[in-house]
């Protein structure tokens, strides 16, 4: 680097500046995110200043209001046409406000809302020392089984921090799919990952497993985000900017930006390709695609079930949103490079998830693997690289997230002395004991399996159709085969619930409060509505299928 250049830098900085024009922020269009983040901060303050007894109520109220308000805001924006005609890039190019963003934000917010309901459930666990308890540790910091923990339980402590954490996570997830430059992407990623790491660690029962899950999730997550960051660095190095638009232009050559020094040594595109691959890898980690899926089963199993439900639903939505934007906005010019890779990933994800699930014995792990398989199906839609592909993925995500939250909510109901009875053998004969719960769970399983008249079928059909039209017929065939394999283990659970004799020392089904009931009820309702009359939502997703550039 020559002295001149250095000097120029100095002078650049030294030049006198008349005025600094303040960045222009469209608060209105960012309102959903701002509301949630703001509420989260208030939640922290609540933790600090509100007396312990009333914290729970304050937090629940706050979260529900915040999420509902945010959702209202999203609806407002959508109604205001920001999803379609007035779609624009806001916050100095950092955030995109467009169809996909709003649709996914809406989905995430609803999922978050239901998640709050399941978080707030306090009727399942037996009352400890006269205090109703939820599924979070009395005091996460205290060592499991230690006196301090007993004391905490006795004192009726509860981890109400869970709610602000949830809100922060939601906030990050809201930004993630709408992030319009790599920096925002990365920050959003961290903002919703870190709270999740913590949430995983604060289960009331089986705390050791919970902590283990947290550690695994955290280490692997950090590892992955390091990759992402390095990818971002390389992309920046390639394009000289982190804004999606700019990078896209550089990629398709409308902006000439070749650094001779790099070009002659490693070929300029190497940066692009490697960088893109690493960023994509980070996102694939979040959606739990093979071979970046291995955290999923352990974390899903270890985390408190409400958290698992939330993660499984919302994280997927957010991550797929980001992935879509990245692939459709930043890297369309690179399609012919990433498509084959994604093909491979989609195939191994579908098959891997389905096959390994066959031999699972823990319901939560089973659902984890099923979520992996579903990630594969969604990837098939992503690969279509058509507007239809986008909208089909959006629809699938919406359908899937409600089924997931509902399913995990049901899992929280089936309990025995040791808390939730997640081992499959304990579910034997559930259909005899409490037909209703079993039937509801069967509905969710059938939706997972993609049986007609459930949302799962509509979604699956949508993505497969898009894939086929996008020229990925082979993917459809693989998808169909893996669905067949997957069907096997969903059916296994149904058989277990209905056709096998209940065990005498089997688990009991706790009667939940209206909160969980709402969560499950909404889940069932959405599952059936989207299965029988999906047209409206398909249109919605169809209108929302266009990214703003």
């Amino acid at each position, binding site marked *: 680097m020559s002295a001149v250049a250095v000097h120029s830098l100095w002078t650049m900085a030294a030049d006198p500046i008349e005025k600094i024009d303040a960045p222009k922020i469209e608060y209105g269009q960012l309102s959903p995110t701002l509301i949630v983040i703001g509420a989260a901060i208030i939640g922290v303050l609540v933790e600090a200043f509100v007396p312990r007894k009333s914290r729970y109520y304050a937090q629940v109220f706050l979260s529900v209001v915040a999420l509902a308000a945010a959702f209202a805001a999203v609806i407002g924006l959508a109604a205001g046409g920001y999803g379609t005609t007035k779609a624009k890039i806001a916050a100095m190019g950092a955030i995109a406000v467009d169809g996909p963003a709003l649709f996914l934000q809406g989905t995430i917010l609803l999922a978050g809302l239901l998640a709050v309901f399941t978080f707030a459930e306090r009727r399942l666990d037996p009352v400890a020392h006269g205090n109703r308890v939820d599924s979070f540790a009395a005091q996460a910091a205290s060592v499991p089984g230690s006196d301090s923990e007993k004391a905490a339980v006795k004192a009726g402590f509860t981890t109400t921090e869970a709610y602000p954490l949830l809100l922060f996570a939601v906030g990050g997830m809201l930004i993630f799919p709408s992030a319009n430059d790599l920096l925002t992407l990365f920050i959003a990623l961290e903002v919703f990952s870190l709270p999740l790491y913590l949430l995983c660690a604060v289960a009331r029962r089986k705390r050791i497993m919970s902590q283990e899950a947290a550690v695994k999730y955290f280490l*692997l997550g950090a590892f992955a985000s390091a990759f992402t960051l390095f990818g971002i660095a390389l992309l920046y190095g390639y394009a000289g900017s982190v804004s999606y638009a700019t990078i896209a232009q550089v990629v398709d050559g409308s902006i000439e930006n070749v650094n001779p020094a790099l070009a002659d040594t490693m070929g300029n595109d190497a940066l692009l390709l490697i960088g893109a691959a690493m960023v994509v890898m980070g996102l694939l980690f979040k959606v739990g695609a093979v071979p970046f899926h291995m955290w999923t089963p352990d974390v899903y199993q270890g985390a408190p079930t409400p958290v698992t439900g939330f993660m499984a639903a919302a994280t997927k939505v957010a991550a797929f949103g980001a992935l879509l934007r990245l692939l459709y906005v930043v890297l369309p010019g690179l399609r012919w490079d990433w498509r084959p890779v994604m093909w491979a990933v989609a195939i191994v994800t579908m098959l891997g998830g389905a096959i390994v699930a066959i031999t699972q014995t823990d319901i939560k792990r089973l659902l984890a693997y099923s979520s992996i398989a579903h990630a594969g199906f969604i990837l098939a839609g992503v690969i279509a690289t058509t507007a239809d592909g986008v909208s089909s993925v959006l629809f699938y995500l919406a359908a899937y997230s409600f089924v997931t939250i509902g399913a995990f909510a049901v899992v929280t109901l089936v309990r025995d002395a040791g808390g939730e009875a997640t081992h499959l053998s304990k579910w034997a004969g559930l259909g005899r004991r409490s037909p209703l719960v079993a039937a509801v769970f069967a509905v969710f399983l059938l939706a997972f399996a993609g049986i007609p008249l459930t949302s799962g079928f509509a979604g699956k059909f949508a993505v497969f159709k898009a894939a086929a039209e996008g020229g990925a017929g082979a993917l459809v065939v693989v998808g169909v085969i893996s669905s067949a394999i997957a069907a096997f283990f969903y059916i296994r659970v149904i058989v277990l619930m209905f056709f096998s004799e209940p065990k005498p020392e089997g688990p009991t089904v706790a009667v939940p409060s209206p909160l969980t009931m709402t969560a499950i009820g909404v889940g069932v309702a959405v599952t059936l509505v989207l299965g029988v009359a999906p047209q409206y939502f398909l249109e919605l997703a169809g209108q929302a299928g266009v990214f703003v550039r």
Partner: protein
Amino acid sequence: MENLIALLVAAPLLGAAVLLCGGRRLDAVGHWIGTVLAAVSFVIGVVLFADMLGKGAEEREMAQHLFSWVPVESFQADIAFQLDQLSMTFVLLITGVGSLIHVYSIGYMEHDERRRRFFGYLNLFLAAMLLLVLADNYLLLYVGWEGVGLASYLLIGFWQHKPSAATAAKKAFLVNRVGDMGLSIAIMLMFAWFGTFAFGPVLEATGETSEGKLTAIGLMLLLAACGKSAQVPLQSWLGDAMEGPTPVSALIHAATMVTAGVYLIVRSADIFNAAPDAQLVVTVVGAVTLLFGAIVGCAKDDIKKALAGSTMSQIGYMILAAGLGPIGYVFAIMHLVTHGFFKAGLFLGAGSVMHGMNDEVDMRRYGGLRKYMPITFVTFGLGYLAIIGFPGLSGFFSKDKIIEAAFAKGGTEGWILGSVALLGAAITAYYMTRVMLMTFFGEERWRHAPTPSPAEPSAEPAAETRGEYEVPHPHESPKSMTIPMIVLAFGSVFAGGFFSIGDRFMHWLEPVTGHDHGHAPVSAMTVTLATMVVLVIGAGIAYVQYGRRPVPALAPRGSLLTRAARRDLLQDDFNHVVLVRGGEHLTRSLVYVDHSLVDGVVNGTAASMGGLSGRLRKLQNGYARSYAVSMFGGAAVLIAVTLLMRAV
């Protein structure tokens, strides 16, 4: 008049319906209902017959179209009847003999608590048989064809508690089904080639198609005939069919049903006339069967089985005659009718004997019965004379004509067939004389207890099943049984003469079957004489063997031929080894295949999936670092592939 035709079938059908659905409350009157309806049908037949005689030879044919049965495009099957002289002959025979046997059964089945159902089945049979001979197309004929098969199945197995009876019934039905295959294939061929299977059009169409095709159809029809008429190679069921009550044997397995094959061939005359090869096969089958049946008849000690053998061989005569073409058709039918009389008579006689002898069937336990049951003896004797062709009686005319016709076929085959027929006549004389002597003459072997006869595994006399032996008291049967026997005896005496004088029968049938005299190499006289001679020889030998010497109560081991003949010339053994055993092995192995291979493949895939899953699971070993490794590797591969994609 035409509209009466349907009633012919309807009357007994109604009877069957009423009796079978009626339930116990009809037990008391059931047999009367059945008999009356059979008689009604006979009366209608007679009326129609009278009406028919009133017309000129050419416009005697009547038809009645009820409704369209299966209309699909060009495939048009109707429920329609056709009554010409041929059908008429059968109608009279069936309803006449049928009614008589109904009457006979009233007495014979008196002590059976399921008599009502028995009459129901008999009526069902009459209906089906009439449908068979009245149908105006092959498909409808097929219905009657299988209908009589069903009736025979039900009646053979009437005493279902006897496993032997049930088995015999099943066997009869199955063997017949094989024949039915022939019939259905024949119909398919007709439809494929002529576009129709109604008698008229088909027989017209014969002119326009190749001989080969007609031969094919002819052979298929012959297969059907073999099944129904117990001709070699499908004859094996008839012997066992004797498990049924004797009236059944008389009506179905002697007089009427078993002759359906002859009817079928004569009805399809035009097809056969145009297909000499087929005809030749028919004659050969007939010739073989008439010898086969005769030989079997000689060896049986079970009176009914002996008669069954004789039936077989007599039908052999008819088939042979039918195979001769226009020379023989008339005589085939004529013999069919006369045989209807005397064979029915013989069976009823046999039944009467059994009735008096506690259902004993082994002739070696009979003897000297003539003084105990005189009427039976006389009627049976007349029938006997008739069947062996004693001059002047029915059999003499009909059988003689067939032998002549066989010679008249001309050429070497004419000679062969003729001499076979002659030989048959001799053997007939032999075994019938044997039956006669063993039953009504000689010492009274039934006075002392029998000892189970090892040499007769196939026949199982009822005596053995009934535990300790009480000496039977032979007695004459009641009127209801003897009268039909007498009537039939008249028939067997005079029918032949009545038909033949002035060739009445020939002129009656000619419009349907046509007739020519062929060119007999030998005069009718010589044939008659020859017949007389062989007849005397046959009867003589029998007399020497069974009249002079005392008959051993236990069957002697006998010559190889005898033993073979006792076992129906090993036909069943062949079937058992080849078909039954083979079939069992086949099915057993197929069951295995289905379970292990077809199913195994699927279960195998499922299992292997499970295995694969189990192995992949191991990768999830719980160590965060190995997860990191897979991520790292994944990323590396991702990058590498991306770069490669660009490189290539």
